[in-house]
């Protein structure tokens, strides 16, 4: 299920946030939205979740279309195909048990009790959490556990599209590792379309396939990760962080005129350095 933004405009009370924004996110790929604070990343999600409506342009998601007239099909059917995890999912929890959180979501999509239980167990299985988590109070969980629970809840109704705003907030090294393998599995084995927004440029370097760089609501650069990060001058000029590996590569070229190929994995970088030093 592909996402396509076609010259989308969005603004609030005279302030333009998105200006003729056009980009695509394909299935079996992880597309990462990056850009400076205030460049419009969260607004992209607001439009995709129908929290806000565009002023102009068109958003296509498979057979669905969102324009300034809204979405001219069943909102419920649309929502059942997409899942959105906000940057602070703990803020959206309202019940005292995880099981109730799952139920409140599955109830919307009319799953019967037997099916609900199955979906919940499957979702917990995918994220690697034991079913004992169902009886825990969300308040008692660490931020890493809450992230995984939010992902499980999002996956419980089998959405084709996963939208995630800042997935790495509050995650330590182990948490990030687990997240990387999970997202990789979700895109390839489960063929989901995954669109994330993140400030963690090193995480993006590890996990993304495609990158869309936003600046003031427009696309500055987009394409395959390797190609986007090779435009280091352009990115630096706009104040966009470069992954540490790319910065290092640049330093090696500038200081010693040795060309290290682009890497997204530290161990590959080490091998490349051993080869060329």
């Amino acid at each position, binding site marked *: 299920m592909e996402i396509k933004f076609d010259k989308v405009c969005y603004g609030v009370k005279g302030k333009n946030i998105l200006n003729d924004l056009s980009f695509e996110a394909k299935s079996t790929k992880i597309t990462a939205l990056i850009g400076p*604070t205030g460049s419009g990343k969260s607004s992209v999600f607001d439009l995709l979740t129908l929290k806000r409506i565009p002023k102009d342009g068109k958003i296509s998601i498979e057979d669905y279309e969102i324009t300034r007239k809204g979405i001219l099909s069943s909102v419920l059917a649309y929502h059942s195909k997409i899942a959105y995890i906000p940057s602070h999912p703990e803020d959206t929890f309202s019940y005292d048990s995880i099981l109730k959180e799952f139920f409140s979501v599955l109830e919307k999509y009319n799953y019967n009790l037997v099916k609900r239980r199955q979906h919940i167990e499957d979702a917990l299985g995918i994220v690697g959490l034991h079913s004992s988590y169902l009886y825990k109070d969300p308040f008692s969980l660490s931020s890493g556990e809450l992230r995984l629970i939010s992902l499980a809840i999002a996956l419980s109704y089998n959405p084709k599209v996963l939208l995630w705003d800042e997935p790495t907030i509050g995650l*330590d090294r182990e948490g990030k590792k687990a997240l990387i393998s999970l997202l990789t599995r979700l895109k390839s084995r489960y063929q989901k379309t995954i669109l994330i927004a993140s400030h963690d440029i090193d995480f993006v370097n590890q996990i993304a396939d495609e990158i869309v760089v936003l600046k003031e609501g427009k696309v500055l650069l987009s394409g395959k990760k390797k190609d986007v990060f090779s435009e280091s001058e352009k990115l630096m000029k706009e104040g966009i962080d470069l992954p540490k590996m790319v910065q*290092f590569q640049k330093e090696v070229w500038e200081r010693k005129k040795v060309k290290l190929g682009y890497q997204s994995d530290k161990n590959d970088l080490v091998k490349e350095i051993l080869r060329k030093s």
Partner: protein
Amino acid sequence: MGKIVEIQNLSFTYTNRPILTNFNLSLMSNRFYTLLGPTGSGKSTLARILIGLEYSHDYIKIDGKFLNPKNIEGIRRIVKLVTESPRGDFVTDTVSKELEFELKCIEEKKIPEKVKSLASKYGFEYLLSRKMWELSDGETQIVALLAALVTNPKLLILDEALSQVDRKTKDRIFTLLKESVKEGLTVLQITQNSEDVFYGNEMIIIDEGQVVFEGSVKDALHSERNFKDHQLELPFIADLSNKLRYYHKISDIQISDKKLVDALWK
């Protein structure tokens, strides 16, 4: 000069879960500390105790005075905590009003001038006219930081406070904070991002409610076990150095890109 924080044998539990156990720590004034630790190690709880949001009757002194319910207001005049998601803490509708509010609470004079002066010092004058609800996540973090700085605290605790701010802006902010450190401010930076350790000189690592490392950033980086034993990621350049040292490509850990490059290609 002297100790801005002195904690002896602090133990704190939260609904039957021990968070801090016989915890000891002293922070000197005019220093920049970075506190690292895995999730659940007690970092945020420590921050909340220092600002009096969690109650403890153990030995805790802030700027030489014991922390207890009677003098919390005084403590909060000199200690400020900035958290990762400050949206819920704001009370007014525009950025300038929010900053002015902080000064009104402590009955300062020449409030608009002080607000403008701080905002321009940090390069955020353009945010002053914005409505609070219009701000992006990163912008709210910046406003929360300015609100903490406008009253000139002695101890500034940042709990993942700039996680949504890009590196270029962070670099600018921290350069200015370090100048303030020379002039009397103490900063305690709590972060999950190991790269942030380079903003300061001192590091503290906590795990399972105990201090497991205290010392300079350089010393911390010299042994990767300080990090790996506590589920922490090493800063990129230190990790890369360790891996290359393992292959005997270099003999010493390097902590800057330039130095590592020079060591590899002599």
